[in-house]
């Protein structure tokens, strides 16, 4: 199993298959040992009837004839016993492969959240298992049957071998020669089938859009082409299959005719009647069926197996880790690592906070105005507006938050928001300083002064040329801070939490979590994310709750956590921490409560609630949020589902593309029209110049 799982991923299926088999040579020996019984049975298939005729029935000694047939019958039983054991040996070969494939599929499914993993698990792995077993059975059966028949023919009379051997070899040769093209046709067919499934997989969920566009005919034509392609592949496969029939006729049927043609010659050379009948029995009862199975099984199963395996063991995507990803040269990790022990919090927002490395790390740095590499250069290069503030203080700090100017860069193409709106925003930058002392008691700075979360020029785009969703964001949260993130749906709030949670890699800038670079294992241990879709797995409630804890958790602590987030009533209904949980039987809100209690119990100091309370009623939501705000040593980031979450938070980050703003709730209500609209104030109009 270790070979299959731990092998280097670079080489192909055949090489890995060989290695897999080599590691299981004992099983192969066992398989061979039991298969010998089948050889014995095959041997008797022709030999016993031959003797029964020659020495028994034809010689008038019925008992001897019946005796030889009885021996053949015994041979059948022994062979059947061999078959039973062969299946066990095949299991020992096939089941570890299945285990390894299941392990791989599950591992990838968990790591990459690959929804295809499910069909991989229930279908492709089973196809691989069945086809592999089929291949082993068929090829093994042919080899051992052929040996038995050849030995039998030789014992009856070597001359018989001379007649049967050459066409058999020719048939096998033809089959071997056509195996590759046949496998290619088979593969073409599978590929066409997959392309069709993909195409239909886009059409069926898109019926609404197709109907709305009136594009039914076009889509029908496109799909028709895929159907056509598959039909062509199937036709080609069917035509090439004639070669199978040819191999079979040559290797299995021609010997029958040749035996008849050569019969006078053979009989004149002393071949007995029984031997001739025995030879015919070998050809028709042993060789022909074995060859038939080989010819039909090998081409079809073989290419199916290769196609399925190739898909199942494709290279895993590189996993998160402290090492920089070599495929993303723009990833700034090396620089960041070197800077890991920088003094993390500097009051004077000098260049140290924005190291020049950002410029080289930022793939967009060359494009003026879109991605300011530096706070001070933003104004001069990016926009034609007069600088809103002096060169130095675009960075505003409180002990709960630091916000740079980068998130406010002027709109695309130098266009910019209404001056009034800008003025309002500008005010919001400076305001938090005044509000800061209010939070001082609630969030004492940690002794080391390391920020709980520090985003520096954080940039993320879904593709190398896509508009960044998060663009040059600077934000510092002191330990104990409570931040709410608000903004229109789809604007990138979840992207931001995904970046902090290490689910996405920034395209520029860096994230540090209590001084630890994200992504890294040490950062992972210091944060807990509860997304909108709460994760509850089948198991006991306690298992679900202590999932993020090493070692056992005392029950009083479990109960206290349940009480704090509002899970206690549900826990009671279910029957205590030991009760088993069926996620499907819980409502979405109940699942969220379980996830909240789990996060509450986790040792992580940074808690990210990404609409984690959206299925709870406002009262329960408030209780849960307060529980986290009062949890000792906790820094809380809430992506707000209701604006009331923002009111409870010390600070609010309003994400709105280029008009991203930051401040306390009150400041933003006063100064950001977009925020006012979100909280239910008057809508506003933005007048923009037409291009």
């Amino acid at each position: 199993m270790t070979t299959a799982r731990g092998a280097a991923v670079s080489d192909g299926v055949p090489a890995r298959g060989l290695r897999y088999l080599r590691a299981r040579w004992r099983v192969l020996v066992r398989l061979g040992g039991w298969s010998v019984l089948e050889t014995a049975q095959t041997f008797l298939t022709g030999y016993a009837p031959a003797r029964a005729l020659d020495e028994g029935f034809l010689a008038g000694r019925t008992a001897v004839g019946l005796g030889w047939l009885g021996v053949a019958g015994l041979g059948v039983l022994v062979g059947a016993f061999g078959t039973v054991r062969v299946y066990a040996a095949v299991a020992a070969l096939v089941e570890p492969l299945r285990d390894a494939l299941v392990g791989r599929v599950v591992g990838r499914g968990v790591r990459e959240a690959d929804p295809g993993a499910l069909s991989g698990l229930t279908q492709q792995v089973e196809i691989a298992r069945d086809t592999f077993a089929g291949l082993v059975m068929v090829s093994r059966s042919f080899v051992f049957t052929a040996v038995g028949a050849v030995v039998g023919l030789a014992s009856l009379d070597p001359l018989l071998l001379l007649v049967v051997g050459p066409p058999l070899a020719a048939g096998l040769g033809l089959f071997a020669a056509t195996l590759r093209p046949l496998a290619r046709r088979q593969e073409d067919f599978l590929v066409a089938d997959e392309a069709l499934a993909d195409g239909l997989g886009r059409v069926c969920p898109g019926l609404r859009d197709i109907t709305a566009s009136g594009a039914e005919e076009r889509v029908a034509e496109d799909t028709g082409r895929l159907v056509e392609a598959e039909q062509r592949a199937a036709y080609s496969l069917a035509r090439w299959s004639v070669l199978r029939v040819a191999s079979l006729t040559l290797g299995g049927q021609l010997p029958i005719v040749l035996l008849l043609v050569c019969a006078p010659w053979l009989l004149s050379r002393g071949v007995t009647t029984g031997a001739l009948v025995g030879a015919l029995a070998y050809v028709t009862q042993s060789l022909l069926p074995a060859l038939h199975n080989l010819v039909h099984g090998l081409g079809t199963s073989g290419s199916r197996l290769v196609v399925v395996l190739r898909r199942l063991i494709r290279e895993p995507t590189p996993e998160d880790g402290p090492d920089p990803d070599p495929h993303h040269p723009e990833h700034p990790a090396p620089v960041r690592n070197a800077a890991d022990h920088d003094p993390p919090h500097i009051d004077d927002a000098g260049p140290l906070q924005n190291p020049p490395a950002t410029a080289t790390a930022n793939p967009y740095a060359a494009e003026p105005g879109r991605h300011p590499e530096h706070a001070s250069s933003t104004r001069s290069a990016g926009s034609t507006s007069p600088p809103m503030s002096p060169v130095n203080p675009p960075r505003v700090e409180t002990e709960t938050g630091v916000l740079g100017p980068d998130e406010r860069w002027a709109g695309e193409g130098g266009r910019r928001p209404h001056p009034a709106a800008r003025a309002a925003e500008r005010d919001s930058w400076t305001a938090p300083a005044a509000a800061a002392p209010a939070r001082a008691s609630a969030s004492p700075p940690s002794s080391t002064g390391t920020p709980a979360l520090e985003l520096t020029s954080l940039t993320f785009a879904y593709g190398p040329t896509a508009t960044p969703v998060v663009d040059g964001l600077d934000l510092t949260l002191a330990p104990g801070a409570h931040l709410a993130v608000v903004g229109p749906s789809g604007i990138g709030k979840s992207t931001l939490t995904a970046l902090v949670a290490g689910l996405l890699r920034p395209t520029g800038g860096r994230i540090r979590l209590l001084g630890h670079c994200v992504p890294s294992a040490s950062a992972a241990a210091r944060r807990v994310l509860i997304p909108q879709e709460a994760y509850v797995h089948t198991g006991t409630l306690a298992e679900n709750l202590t999932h993020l804890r090493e070692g056992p958790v005392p029950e009083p602590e479990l109960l206290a956590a349940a009480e704090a987030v509002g899970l206690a009533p549900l826990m009671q209904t279910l029957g205590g921490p030991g009760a088993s949980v069926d996620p499907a039987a819980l409502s979405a809100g109940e699942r969220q409560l379980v996830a909240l209690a789990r996060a509450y119990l986790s040792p992580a100091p940074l808690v990210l609630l990404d609409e984690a309370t959206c299925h709870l009623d406002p009262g329960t939501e408030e209780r849960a949020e307060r529980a986290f705000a009062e949890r000792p040593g906790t820094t809380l980031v809430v992506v707000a589902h209701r604006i009331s979450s923002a009111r409870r938070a010390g600070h609010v980050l309003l994400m709105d593309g280029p008009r991203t703003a930051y401040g306390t709730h009150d400041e933003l209500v006063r100064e950001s029209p977009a925020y006012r609209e979100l909280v239910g104030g008057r809508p506003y109009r933005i007048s923009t110049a037409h291009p």
Partner: protein
Amino acid sequence: MTTSTAPPAPHNRPSPHSSPAPHGRLGPAPARWLALCLLSTASTGASLLLPTALGRTLDLLLAREPATRWVLSCAALVLLLALLDAAETVLGGTVTARTTSWLRRRLTGHVLAVGPRATARFGPGDLVARLVGNAAQAGTAPAARAALLAALAGPVGAVVALGLISPWLAAVFLAGAPVLALLLRAFARDTRECVTRYQEVQGRIAQALSEAVGGHRTIRAAGTEDRETARVLRPLPELSAAGHRMWRVQGRAAGQSVAIAPLLQLGVVAVAGVLLARHRVTVGEVLAASRYALLATGVGVLVGQLAGLARARAATGRLDEVLAEPPVGYGTRRLPPGPGRLELRGVTALRGGRAVLDGVDLVVPGGTTLAVVGRSGAGKSLLAAVAGRLADPDSGEVLLDGVPLRELTHDEVRGAIGYAFERPALLGGTLEEEIGLGLPSPSPARVRRAARTARADDFVRRLPHGYDTLVADAPRSGGESQRLGLARAFAHGGRLLVLDDALSSLDTVTEARIAEALVGDGTHGTRLLVAHRAATAARADAVAWLDGGRVRAVGPHAELWRTAEYRAVFGEGGEAADRDASNRGPT
């Protein structure tokens, strides 16, 4: 079995009430099917003749009599068998392929004609499974049916042939056959039980995996992938044990079944040998009897074929369910020239027995913009669907420039009405094709102009291949997808444009620009916007406020804004926010 040829299927829209059964039985190529039937029957006939010919030839050869003619006829039979086999292989393969693609084309056409209702009724995943997997299974039905007669004729003919050689031989075989049948039954029962067990454990792993896939954000953020993987894999040893057991049971069953046919055959040969010793049969007849005994055990093949046919029939049934869904019917009328006046008269639409739209009356004058607002579940999206005939109302009428939408031709209604959605479904071509989806021959200039209006031009042009980039190769945010969907709607044009929450993922500046382009220049005809934001509603000429499937009020946003309940639609507690702000001043 009937061999009558059915009339060819109408290629356009199949009538919903015609039964697909005749085609399901014979497939789209009845002549080929008939040929296949004849081929496989002929093949069976030849294989039944061969043992007798072999036996006769052997007897002549053993008697040192001239046997050239018999040897030649044996050779001819073998050659004939090979040819028939080859022809059967090709014909069987092509009939199956042809039937499958015929079914798929027909189903795709039908599903497209049914439209979004098909997705709602079956779910997209199930629909794909039916079109791909079930169609392939159903496609094997004609070939399986054609082979059935031959599969039945083989064993029956073989037993008859045994009886012709000597009634004793047939008697021995028939006495042994029930044992065969019993053992085959035991085989089926045994495997079914351990297969169930195996699938049960597999289902548990799959369940845990699907839970973990659903919770991947939680898991990856905590870095507990390895622990989760281990937890999901916890039942693996059980699966392995169940798998081993399955092989053991299968091995036992296989041991029985591989033994039974040769033992039956040996029994027949033993009786034939005794008869030979008494000179009642010849050596050649012993050989023939041995072969016939084997052919007669082919009855197991018949069982397998029947099971395959049953599967194919079940699959055909699932396809029939899809075909039974009636397609959308279109009328024959065309639109008169007009500004795009939209009128809903007493529109009621039910979903799951509930009236989601309940007697909606609404008029949108040509060239104006109407915003539709309301809490979630108020029926906004269904209203948007009904307004452009993506769904038909259960009662009431929707008219565009005075003509009921139902009476318009397909091209007329789809050409006149454009749509953009909150989450546009992209079909996988290039971005150029995607944006020009609704146009018969989209000109590059028109596509680019639409993309500019939707503010998608910038990010499309920055892609490696610009407008020729495949959708799959264009990673994008929700807002960017939305802008592609908008570009598609703008490129489509028409006198009515329906935006179903299609601006929701845009930042306020982008949204404002698109909305201004949309409302401002008047080239987009009448607009119906489903909106969540107050700013969007404020830009419209009028707002229709939906509440519980009814129109609560229609009027300018500024007027409606005076109502607290209306304000509450845009965010919980509009006035609460104001109060809050005044109470909690900065400290």
